């Protein structure tokens, strides 16, 4: 039971972590909370579902298409809703992001209707037993894919020229410019990558719960945001830890305390942590 909950938590947590990575990377480079991250997640899921619905493409193409659409949306969003507001009071882009979030949600509502859509392909997943624990291979696949994407991201950031450039921009924008790094381009790239990850998360969750709907991004988005803050906004390992931690806490809390308050655990933990460490677990020490 406990291990099962733990695994459930890890699966959800891995998805939160993927979205949280988007939040954290964008915050790292722009100091901005992209409230519309949940809608990007939703967009990824919808595009994948629609692509599969046409019956023309196979699953992997649809998956890639969903990620690409989400990535593109992220880049456009940055151009339209954030770039013109750079340099303004931090509140301004925050509210702009909320506006964008409302806009995208209602756009999806308009385009796809309020009803859930089930995922077009039925996967025949087996349940295997590992060490006496029944593990759905779907869970395993999601967890594996999410961890794989995270690993890819870490490799990208650590070992590629552009990855390092993104980190450099996040650390010290002026000095990065002195290296000849075009910060605007790096910001776009960050939005591209962060949004692609969120899109992937959306597709995974659409498969996991077999449901795609316009408001699907709201709660995972908020929780991922909490996860990012929990881990210390701007820190990539922080976002991963925060996401996993939150998923597990939520799953265990729902199982052992009250399922009705499932969604509250994430925020309760967050508030408590922030009161003790105002900059998150892995964030810099508050002063």
């Amino acid at each position, binding site marked *: 039971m406990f291990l099962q909950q733990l695994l459930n938590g890890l699966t959800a947590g891995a998805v939160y972590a993927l979205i949280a990575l988007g939040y954290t990377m964008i915050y790292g480079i722009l100091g901005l909370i992209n409230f519309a991250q949940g809608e990007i997640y939703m967009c990824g899921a919808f595009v994948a579902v629609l692509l599969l619905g046409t019956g023309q493409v196979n699953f992997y193409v649809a998956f890639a298409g969903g990620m690409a659409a989400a990535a593109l949306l992220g880049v456009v969003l940055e151009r339209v809703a954030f770039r013109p507001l750079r340099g303004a009071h931090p*509140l301004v882009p925050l509210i702009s992001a909320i*506006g964008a979030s409302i806009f995208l949600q209602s756009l999806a509502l308009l385009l796809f209707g309020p009803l859930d859509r089930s995922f077009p392909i039925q996967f025949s997943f087996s349940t295997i037993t590992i060490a006496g624990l029944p593990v759905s291979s779907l869970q395993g696949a999601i967890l594996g894919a999410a961890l794989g994407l995270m690993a890819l991201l870490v490799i990208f950031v650590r070992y590629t020229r552009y990855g390092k450039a993104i980190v450099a921009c996040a650390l010290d924008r002026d000095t990065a410019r002195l290296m000849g790094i075009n910060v605007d381009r790096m910001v776009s790239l960050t939005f591209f990558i962060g949004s692609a990850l969120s899109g992937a998360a959306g597709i995974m969750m659409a498969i996991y719960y077999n449901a795609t709907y316009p408001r699907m991004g709201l709660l995972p988005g908020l929780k991922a945001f909490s996860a990012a803050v929990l881990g210390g906004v701007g820190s990539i390992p922080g976002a991963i830890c925060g996401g996993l931690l939150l998923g597990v806490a939520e799953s265990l809390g729902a199982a052992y305390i009250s399922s009705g308050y499932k969604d509250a655990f994430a925020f309760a933990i967050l508030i408590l942590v922030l009161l003790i460490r105002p900059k998150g677990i892995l964030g810099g020490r508050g002063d």
Partner: protein
Amino acid sequence: MIAYLLHLAILGGIYVILAISLNLIVGYAGQVSLGHAAFYGIGAYVSALTSLLCHFPFPLAALSAIIFTGACGLLLGLPTLRLKEDYLAIVTLGFGVIVDLVFLNLDITGGPDGLPGIPAPSFLGVSFRSPWLYLVLTLMVVLLTLGLTYRLVHSYHGRALRAIRDHEVTAQVMGINTPAYKVAIFTLAAALAGLAGSLYAHYITFINPESFGLHTSILALCMVVLGGMGSLAGAVVGALALTVLPEILREFRAYQDLVYGGLLVGLLIWRPQGLLGRGKLSLKFISRE
């Protein structure tokens, strides 16, 4: 038709109070709150429960709501106001979600079914069941709130608040006790939101958690931003506009939120000071660092 207009007017009045209270936090103390609907909801539930369970008359119920929400505001404000913008935003947002879930899960609040049969106020033998009378009551409260906040922001204390908003550190070295002011204004804003919730509960006579979720918090924030942060008239205009606008867009109901969202982003880009706001939101004087 008239009944419908009356309904809109009353709701508009309630939103005005809500927007003004949030504007105190955002526009005058320079803090962000993404969970303001929680106070609004707490006020509504407290007022409803005290009248349902303790049979408090409306004024007393409303007063209980004010005091209780004020206390909640104080309790939340004391530890969290030292957090910076983004963090405060997420904490208030979390607070809103948690409160929403509490409404949804407690027995006393009726869970998702909500509380029906909240009595309409009666006052010195006059029942305010009639929408006309309720409108009068609402307007009175609105005027009172406006008068109070107007006095406040144009007083000695208002100056201190604006100083804090513009430059907290500087306000401190000018001898302004900034933590006290921030907590006080947060408490006051919570209490006012509670008052708005109380008015709402007794007008609609049925409440459920749906009315007090994140959506409402964001709606309130939009009202403030639309009207212009730090402008009382702006809060009024913003609240009324966002009450009326959906009705005008009724035929295009589906597009309503689309317009909202687009409007918000567009407004920030083209007129960052809001419709009636003074000065720029960007709180100029961008420092050297």
